[in-house]
């Protein structure tokens, strides 16, 4: 059974005079021990999904979903305290921009100690407990590959390089021994050496602890080298999802294709300084979303039917939402009309 199961999640943002549908029927599952990549550009709603899962929603946002289940229990129907408990112990989040997500006024040691749940401390007396906490904090740092812990324990977040604070964020997330780790854009703006380290760390955690990881990013290089499955988002709609292998081999949605083509490293026969493949235009803002398939105005194969939102279809666990999928020219016209 899926560890995390999201079906038809829609998120509305109330701006006062209108209600914007920022997420449009997004479905997502995360199995035990799976690394799923959530791919999309900024403004595609990746972080909105993360916030819906953890329940950190401002009062003018509202969500509607068929289900958001964790291990079969509905997160939406859960009591507040129960949900907090699940979030504390089972699901951990590593936020974007680690240097600003850490508390600037408290040193690293205190922050890590605070993130260790009291259940894990079994010593009886307060001096022993405090000592145990500190030892746990140090072993957490070692776990994420920080060897000279003494150098960082007494520092404040602004004194630490970004990649180390990223590791510290991961260490804090792992303190509660979670089942799911949500890594929100963990490799953004890193050079390839540190990026490889972080990716290796996540892969190792996944293998040794069976940790399920939801890896939110738009760094395709990082995603394809690590994840098992991926879900591609565009403007709050899921455009394609399935095994990384099959998506790379045969992207069915034009957006996935464009995304893969945009990375120059993926094309072997690309002459230096030749123009790259790029979609025209830019991502629409939330106030001016096109109707139907939101890629419509930028899509090279857009036709008249695209003003109606496509229904997700699947071929062998490879889901896509497009009226005119690539590589599949013979989708039966009759079949399409049924959905229209």
């Amino acid at each position, binding site marked *: 059974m899926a560890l995390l199961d999201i079906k038809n999640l829609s998120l509305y943002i109330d701006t006062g005079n209108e209600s914007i549908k920022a997420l449009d029927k997004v479905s997502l599952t995360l199995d035990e021990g799976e690394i799923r990549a959530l791919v999309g550009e900024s403004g595609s709603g990746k972080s909105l999904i993360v916030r819906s899962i953890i329940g950190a929603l401002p009062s003018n946002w509202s969500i509607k979903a068929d289900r958001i289940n964790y291990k079969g229990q509905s997160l939406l129907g859960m009591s507040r305290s129960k949900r907090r408990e699940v979030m504390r112990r089972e699901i951990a989040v590593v936020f974007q921009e680690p240097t600003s997500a850490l508390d600037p006024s408290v040193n690293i040691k205190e922050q890590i100690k605070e993130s260790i749940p009291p259940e894990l401390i079994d010593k009886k007396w307060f001096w022993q407990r405090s000592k145990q906490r500190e030892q746990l904090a140090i072993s957490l740092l070692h776990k994420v590959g920080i060897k000279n812990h003494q150098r960082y324990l007494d520092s404040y977040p602004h004194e630490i*390089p970004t990649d180390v604070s990223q590791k510290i964020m991961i260490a804090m997330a792992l303190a509660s021994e979670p089942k799911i780790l949500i890594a929100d854009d963990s490799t953004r703006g890193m*050079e*390839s050496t540190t990026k490889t380290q972080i990716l290796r760390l996540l892969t190792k955690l996944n293998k040794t602890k069976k940790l399920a990881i939801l890896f939110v990013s738009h760094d395709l*290089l990082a995603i*394809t080298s690590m994840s098992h499955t991926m879900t591609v988002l565009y403007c709050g709609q899921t455009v394609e999802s399935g095994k990384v292998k099959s998506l790379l081999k045969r992207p069915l949605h034009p957006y996935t294709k464009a995304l893969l083509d945009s990375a*120059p490293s993926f094309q072997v026969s690309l002459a230096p300084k030749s123009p790259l493949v790029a979609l025209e235009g830019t991502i629409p803002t939330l106030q001016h979303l096109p109707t139907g398939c939101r890629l419509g105005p930028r899509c090279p194969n857009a036709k008249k039917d695209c003003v109606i939102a496509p229904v997700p279809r699947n071929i062998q666990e490879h889901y896509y939402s497009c009226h005119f999928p690539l590589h599949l020219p013979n989708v039966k016209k009759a079949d399409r009309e049924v959905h229209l």
Partner: protein
Amino acid sequence: MKPILDVKSIEYTYVSRRGFFSPEQKFHLGPISFHLNAGETIAIVGNNGSGKSLIAKALVGAIKPEKGEIVILDDDDIGQNSKFRTRAVRMILQHSVNSLNPALSIGSILNKPLQINSDLGVDQRREKIERTLVQVGLLREHYHFYRHMLSDGQQQRVALARALILDPKIIVADEPFAALDPSVRSQTVNLILKLQKELGLGFVFISHNIGIVRHISDRVLVVDRGKVIEEGSTQEVFANPQQAVTQKLVYSHFNLVEKHFSQM
């Protein structure tokens, strides 16, 4: 190939202090020498804190090197004053979005450098700004727009227009693509390649995205702890890296690429 920029063993020491009584921390840059030809792209790569951005700052004149000199070669030798340098070398900043003043319209953002650095009249300036906007793929109407009305990609284009408005010979870009999304990034890369071809711009490009560096640069400079440790044509350096730092950078990138292809 016509050389346009010659950097002769510049040195600079950056001194910082954590607290009033704590000891000074020194970072020594250089000596660094390289040259740039017209129409050529030179990429500066290296780990964080290796002094890449300091080189960029020295090139545009934001810091003054203690030793050595930076010579911009020009046919009509006007002399190496700062006014000439401002016109010849322009910079694109890392977060172009934050570098645009939200209170000014795009027109007045682009107007200021012209007003200070050229003797064009009001109408000529207006004409020039509109021409530059079209050149970077925006519309004439964007003259009246403000920062918040533009998308990420368009803001990046405005930043590029601001660099181009004085008809520079050299553009220095510090991580111009780091904050951009893949599809917008490809558009910007294409635009820069196109402009370089048309205008014969020299381009100094600082990045840690090895994939892009490999694609758009002719030569690479690998910097570590303030020193140039490896230099050469992009193909050579990436095919056969000599220094440990370069090897680590290059191999870690290619490992990821390899893993990608093994998935196919």
